[in-house]
């Protein structure tokens, strides 16, 4: 291998074989059409091809591979949620993430650094104890830390934050980060190698519905017939669902984040504070990544607003005062599809052959592997919902059986 690399480095020929060959023209019909070529969409296609032998599959993407929320999220992987349903689901996801680099033969730069969440009030400490026990019960690694232990773990963290000093911390040892683009690339390459077609610049514009089934999808490149359709379009979920008159409790909000100029390594764990609505981590390149809760009102536009960025920075500086002297390098926003109970919507829809992968809000990236795997099972079994995602169906809202996920990042408001 090293010699091949050396030969390649010394050769003057450019790369001959691209990983993702130029898109072929659309076939007239596919067994499965996945709308949305982000991490989730290609993960579903990958597991369909790998475990279920379904390769007459097309992924339709209106932009380019992984160009939406997959590339805009802050790449946090964790399972320390509140409800047993979510914790089971995300622990399975963390388990798959750990092995992805080997499975793809492609480095997703999975880096298990641990995640520290800070409590600034007694009620938060109590909630953290519950989250800690629930996580351990289902096999996750989580501990409660006191102030002294936090000081040893993150020496530069300011524990006297304003009028609400840090009381304790929830230390989630399984907390990790990975290169988000690489996850989408790895899944896409694996799916395409097994025969799945990936069509960039192909927008699903309308549906042909007969007898409560979607029989064809109209795209900007022509109409294509379909056996089963899965939508995995994150922030644009409502736009597609409105075309099929599927009513859902989704609101679309921008979520803003930013990175500073690179600095020397000072922060191994991912640190977040629900009271300060802020999380801080240092990327492998040394940049300090700062994110927080979503915008105060709905919008379909990844714009940034000064007041939200100022608020985020104020809190980041409270946590790490020396950051006041660093400069911001980049800032951006993504579009998130929020649900009222902060849990996703996965599974069946009122249309017989149309499956939903929506409502991910601020936690879509960390669920990519397990969502792809379970949604692929759902598609391959012809609509039998796997037990792991059964609680997350759209119908939970009409049965008043919401899953109140207060461990979600945006739920800290």
């Amino acid at each position, binding site marked *: 291998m090293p010699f091949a690399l050396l030969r390649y480095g010394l050769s003057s020929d450019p790369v001959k074989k691209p990983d993702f060959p130029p898109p072929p023209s659309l076939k007239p019909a596919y067994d499965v059409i996945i709308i949305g070529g982000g991490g989730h969409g290609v993960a579903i296609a990958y597991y369909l091809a790998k475990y279920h032998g379904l390769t007459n599959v097309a992924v339709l993407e209106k932009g380019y591979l992984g160009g939406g929320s997959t590339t805009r999220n802050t790449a946090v992987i964790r399972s320390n949620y509140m409800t047993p349903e979510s914790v089971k689901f995300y622990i399975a996801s963390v388990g798959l993430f750990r092995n992805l680099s080997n499975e793809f033969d492609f480095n997703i730069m999975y880096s298990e650094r641990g995640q520290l969440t800070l409590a600034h009030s007694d009620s938060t400490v109590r909630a953290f104890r519950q989250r800690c026990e629930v996580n351990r019960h289902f096999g996750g690694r989580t501990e409660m830390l006191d102030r002294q232990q936090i000081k040893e773990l993150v020496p530069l963290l300011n524990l006297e934050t304003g009028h609400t000093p840090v009381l304790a911390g929830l230390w989630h040892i399984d907390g990790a980060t990975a290169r988000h683009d690489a996850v989408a690339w790895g899944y896409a390459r694996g799916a395409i190698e097994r025969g799945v077609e990936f069509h960039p610049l192909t927008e699903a514009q309308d549906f042909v519905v007969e007898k409560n089934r979607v029989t064809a999808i109209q795209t900007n490149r022509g109409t294509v017939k379909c056996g089963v359709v899965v939508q995995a379009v994150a922030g644009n979920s409502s736009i597609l669902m*409105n075309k099929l008159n599927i009513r859902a409790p989704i609101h679309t909000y921008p979520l803003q984040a930013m990175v500073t100029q690179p600095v020397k390594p000072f922060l191994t764990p991912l640190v977040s504070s629900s009271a300060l609505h802020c999380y801080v981590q240092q990327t492998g390149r040394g940049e300090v990544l700062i994110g927080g809760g979503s915008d105060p009102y*709905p919008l379909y536009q990844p714009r940034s607003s000064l*007041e939200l960025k100022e608020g985020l920075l104020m809190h980041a500086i409270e946590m790490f005062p020396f950051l006041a002297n660093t400069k911001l390098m980049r800032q951006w926003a993504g579009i998130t599809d929020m649900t009222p109970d902060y849990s996703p919507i996965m599974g069946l829809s009122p249309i017989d052959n149309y499956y939903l992968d929506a409502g991910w809000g601020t936690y879509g990236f960390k669920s990519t592997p397990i969502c792809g795997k379970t949604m692929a099972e759902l598609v391959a079994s012809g609509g039998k919902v796997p037990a792991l995602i059964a609680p997350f169906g759209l119908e939970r809202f009409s049965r008043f059986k919401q899953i109140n996920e207060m461990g979600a990042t945006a739920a800290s408001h």
Partner: protein
Amino acid sequence: MKLMPCPLNGLRNITEFTYGGEVTGMPNPNTATDTEWADYVFNKTNPAGVVREWWLHNASGYWFIAERDTVTDHIRKTFDPGELFTQRVDFSPSAASSASATKENPL
């Protein structure tokens, strides 16, 4: 900062306001089925385009309605809810008296 034209207070910073959800018609609570009520409580249209929504000016406690484009964030107009809600809606506690006391929502 983005400005919101409040019908009561004029142009004010957007951070002085709280978003209050889409303006929708409420089904009659005495006659609605669970499914209809759940649809009213949870489901949103969430369109990418112009939407009518409730807003609150926090300092003055004043609720009003805005027509805003959710793609461009352009606020087309704002007005007092009195323009839309011209009738008083009363609720009766029991289904027995519902026929006499409740009126249909204007939307």
